[in-house]
């Protein structure tokens, strides 16, 4: 029987190793699986690479994990959000690496990782600093950059409703990076607000099919 419902955050996060790349869904504060990310503080894995659109706000969630000093590198599109304090401090002190990626390229690289592609040519960033060191190719009269996939050892996402099969829906614009991140984790863990107890969700409404999800934890919203 398939039952992906984890009893606790600790159970869901068990086995995450030092050196892992951790993909984290969310944009700004919407859709960030804060409970799971804060669970990583307890979980204790070190030398992490985090991938998220931003780099944490305040001192909770991603910022709390950064503050442990156990994150080696941050890959994001916009680390300079209003209220972001921990990352800028660490970066200024030379205590963390940063790879800044255009937002659409970041999302597409994660999707490529999940979809088994070796890379893709995108027009985004041609003629900019983002192109430094990358192959530029003219295809059908237009220039493109070669961008490579991002895969995660772990992916953390925030869904809305889940079922025991790991199927997920999202809520409004909290969907954002979730579906692509969920595809790209070797182990994908979702925190959700509701677990549908009556079996499977409406198959037409599922956004992330359970094949992409390894564990689900219900959290208080």
């Amino acid at each position, binding site marked *: 029987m398939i039952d992906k419902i984890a009893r606790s955050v600790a159970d869901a996060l068990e086995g995450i190793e030092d050196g892992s790349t951790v993909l984290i869904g969310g944009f700004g504060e919407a859709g960030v699986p804060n409970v799971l990310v804060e669970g990583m503080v307890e979980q204790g894995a070190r030398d992490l690479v985090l991938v998220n659109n931003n780099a944490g706000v305040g001192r909770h969630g991603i910022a709390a994990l950064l503050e442990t000093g156990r994150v080696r590198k941050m890959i994001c599109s916009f680390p*300079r959000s209003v209220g972001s304090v921990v990352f800028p401090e660490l970066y200024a002190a030379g205590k963390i690496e940063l790879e800044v990626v255009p937002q659409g390229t970041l999302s597409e690289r994660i999707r490529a990782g999940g979809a088994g592609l070796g890379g893709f040519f995108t*027009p985004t960033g041609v003629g900019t600093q983002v192109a430094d060191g990358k192959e530029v190719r003219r295809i059908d009269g237009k220039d493109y950059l070669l961008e490579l996939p991002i895969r995660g050892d772990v992916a953390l996402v925030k869904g809305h409703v889940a079922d025991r099969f790991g199927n997920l829906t999202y809520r409004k614009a909290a969907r954002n990076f979730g579906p692509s991140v969920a595809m790209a984790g070797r182990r994908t863990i979702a925190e959700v607000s509701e677990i549908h107890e009556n079996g499977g969700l409406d198959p037409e409404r599922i956004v992330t099919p359970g094949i992409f999800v390894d564990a689900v934890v219900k959290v208080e919203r």
Partner: protein
Amino acid sequence: MAKPLSRLQIAWRIAQDIPDGAYVNLGIGMPEMVANYLPDDREVMLHSENGILGLGPSPADGEEDWDLINAGKKPVTLVEGGSYFHHTDSFAMVRGGHLDLCVLGAYQVSAEGDLANWSTGDESRLPAIGGAMDLAMGARGIYVMMELCTRKGAPKILERCTYPLTGERCVNRIYSDYAVIDIAEDGPVVRETIDGIDLAGLQDKAEARLRLAEDWRTLTAPDL
């Protein structure tokens, strides 16, 4: 002496040029104001990179839903006919040329339409790109909304940008405090100017050489 348009007036002016039925992304910051001046008889679908088509007005105080924010991370609403989708699909819309227009702010625009709006090259600031590079290369039309000069009086329409680029040859038109300027094949062409400034006066505010369109018009905006 010409009285430059306020930012509200520039936003108003841009709004007049957005056609009924257009799919439009309004960049974070100043461009967001354009939404407030869209004529009532036009149905414009506003796109937000974080997976929304059909942005509505800000919610009333206390009605905020923090799962429904725009690219600037401010709470918004969804209009009837709007939809949610994931980030990768959202940028497929952007990159695939499905947006009719995107309005962006700018630090600098070159005579050829290069755009610099993400970095001043200041190494002490955290680098942060966001969705600007995708939008600059993806939307079918790129309108820039900006003042002609910086607060210190330095021109922002340059022969070449000195700041790091956001995109090459992507800007189609600049809406500014003194003029509306197209980026044509052979450089900037002034299409509209406010009362009280002539081409020479505008040229004082731009490094790149400006030309006046033959069908040049006067730009008037309501008090706002």
